[in-house]
């Protein structure tokens, strides 16, 4: 156990999980979450995120390994004694109770007296701006309102750790963005630790302190949002987070922290070697659309350029999105800001594109 693990609030220590005894749904999970941190588990459906959350909440047992909460192993503590707040994807508000009764429930089972309960319920409802709705049934609320109530219910008994499993999955885009902001604000105000599960990368990037990208039962990368976006550690992360252009090729030479990659059509470009180590290896070179430059004046002296044919120009308001054919890839996207002096490329035009070598990352194929 490292020093960091000892300070951490939640620790997954070599955790494995199998439901059927044949396949591992979670393979060797090591993760420590600091107190007050907003950590998001991001990954495609079926990658084991919910399973991890359920193990932490106590509804599933780890097949192997330990989960520690505040330094103590919790494998043998039943869910109702863990004191972890939880927001479910479909909210799981009790339909036979009013909103206020729903919120009062966790306080009642803790034998809190009535006046204290009422005060706390009122405060929690105020916090999510639902004060007038205490007497309603969940079925009389809109999706967004139910979401707020579910959040308030998970927070009303003042847990230090709150788990949220795709809590905004059922809301429309506008409401989702609003609630992302709201949840983040409340979590920061209360100083609670949040483990948040989502498959929506924008949500993960905008809300989290750190994001754990899951795939195939493993954490592919654990990093703050900016690092995740700008410095993906492997091609899965690069593909999964944000928009990404890839070019396939073979590593020719690695020198002074720069890799020379021979693309499949014979052209040579420079890239930053991330997880390629030796010449001859196949690689996927990844470049973000907004880091591609076609204006020669803005390119570095001596930068490698590639010839590209413009296939499609899409006007999107704040940005222009242009689809190019580059080295055999017909889905090479570049994004340019809609500035007064910006050129609008025409389909059929031939241009030279280039980029800074550090924006171009040679990843595993």
């Amino acid at each position, binding site marked *: 156990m490292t020093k960091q693990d000892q300070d951490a609030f939640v620790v997954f220590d070599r955790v494995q999980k199998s439901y059927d005894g044949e396949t591992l749904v979670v393979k060797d999970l090591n993760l420590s979450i600091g107190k007050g941190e907003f950590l998001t588990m991001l990954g495609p459906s079926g990658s084991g995120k919910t399973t991890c959350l359920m193990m932490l909440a106590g*509804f599933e047992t780890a097949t192997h390994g330990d989960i520690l909460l505040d330094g103590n192993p919790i494998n043998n503590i039943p869910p109702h004694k863990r004191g972890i707040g939880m927001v479910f994807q479909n909210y799981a508000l009790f339909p036979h109770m009013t909103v206020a009764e729903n919120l009062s429930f966790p306080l009642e*089972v803790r034998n809190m007296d009535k006046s204290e309960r009422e005060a706390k319920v009122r405060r929690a409802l105020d916090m999510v701006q639902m004060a007038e709705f205490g007497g309603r049934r969940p079925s009389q609320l809109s999706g967004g309102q139910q979401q707020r109530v579910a959040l308030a219910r998970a927070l009303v008994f003042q847990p230090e750790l709150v788990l949220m499993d795709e809590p905004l999955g059922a809301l429309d885009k506008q409401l989702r963005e609003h609630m992302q902001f709201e949840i983040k604000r409340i979590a920061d105000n209360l100083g609670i630790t949040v483990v948040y599960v989502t498959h929506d990368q924008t949500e993960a990037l905008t809300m989290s302190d750190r994001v754990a990208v899951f795939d195939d039962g493993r954490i592919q990368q654990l990093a703050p949002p900016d690092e995740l976006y700008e410095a993906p550690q492997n091609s899965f992360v690069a593909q999964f987070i944000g928009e990404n252009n890839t070019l396939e090729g073979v590593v020719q030479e690695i020198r002074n922290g720069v890799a020379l990659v021979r693309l499949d059509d014979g052209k040579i470009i420079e890239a930053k070697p991330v997880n390629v180590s030796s010449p001859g290896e196949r690689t996927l070179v990844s470049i973000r659309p907004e880091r591609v430059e076609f204006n020669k004046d803005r390119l570095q002296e001596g930068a490698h350029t590639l010839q590209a044919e413009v296939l499609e120009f899409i006007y999107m308001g704040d940005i222009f999105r242009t689809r190019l054919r580059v080295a055999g890839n017909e889905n090479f996207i570049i994004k340019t800001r809609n500035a007064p002096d910006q050129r609008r490329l025409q389909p059929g035009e031939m241009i030279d594109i280039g980029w800074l070598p550090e924006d171009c990352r040679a990843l595993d194929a």
Partner: protein
Amino acid sequence: MSDTTHTGPMLAADGSPLKRSLERALRRQKLRALALIAPLLIFILVTFIAPIADMLFRSVENEIVSETLPRTVVALKDWDPTLGELPDEAVFAAMAADLQEAAKAKIHTRVGSRLNYETPGISSLFRKSGRQASKWDLEKDGPFKDVLIKSEKGWGELDVWKTIQVYSPKYTNGYFLNAVDLEKTASGISPRDEDQQIYITLFLRTFAMSIGITLSCLMLGYPVAWLLSNLPSRSSNLLMILVLLPFWTSLLVRTSAWKVLLQQQGVINDVLVWVGLVANDDRLVMINNQFGTVLAMTHILLPFMILPLFSVMKTIPPSYLRAAKSLGASNWTAFWRVYFPQSVPGIGAGSILVFILAVGYYITPELVGGTKGTFISNRIAFHISSSLNWGLAAALGAILLGFVVLLYWVYDRLVGIDNVKLG
């Protein structure tokens, strides 16, 4: 909007009121729908509603007396039985004329049997005197007081005439009074002799045992329904087949199987004796009593409890229980405060179904109930097929129906019938 500016009724494009044109447009649609369900409607009317209505009518209908004995009924009108004297000659003469006519049409025994329900012995008066009536000469053979009493001395009894007078109206509440252990006498309504009071006891027993059966079905069925809705689908399908299995065997076979199991020389007693829990000469009495009836009927009605419960529980997402536990509720609290209230509609549906089926059940109590474990329906069946007192059977049936409807109403007031979910 222009529509809100004028205050009259909304008008359709052609100027007629919107309501009327909507009605016209919907009428054809309604007629077509009605035509589609017409066969079923007619079927239900003919085979279900009509027999019930006929039965209900029979429970108050009493035309037979005034139709067979029209003259007697008229003549008896002024007779005052409280004086303690037999009616006068006019009444006897009227009776003789009625009897003669009825005997010619061969319907005199029928009115005899009808009146016999009320005062045992009357049917033989009608039968025997009716046989002689054809020989009487109504003009010359009087006075008929003597003739009748000579032919059957029962005609000299006050009770016979009282009964005829009391039951002369076309409609009577006599069957209903009879069904609740009362009787109609010349001096009003009074309780029956104690040794004839059986129906109230039977009603109470029927209800008490049906409640017992409903409760035991609930207690046995709830966990099974829970398992059904929570096990992985492969095991729950198997369990569902086991639940439905009884439906594939005849009711009679299942009830007889209970006889084999429960009787004193039966399988269970044999095993208990063999194990040594029960002495051979002290075998348990488990059949032909209330225990046998409750046991066998619980078994037979169990699926009717499990299925509605299951269909409700299936719709309760497991995340509710998880949510409750994550909020700090122990397993029991989570079940009792969160799961159970949501399964109440299933409990209501299952209980109403089982209770109503139990209250009207006939075959199983008949076979395993003995004398102490029979239901009111067994008595109804007796009156329908053995004593042929259909009026009383109808009255008993009507009371049973009334009680069930009342119960339904009470349930609606207490729990709300829209809370009942059958699927």
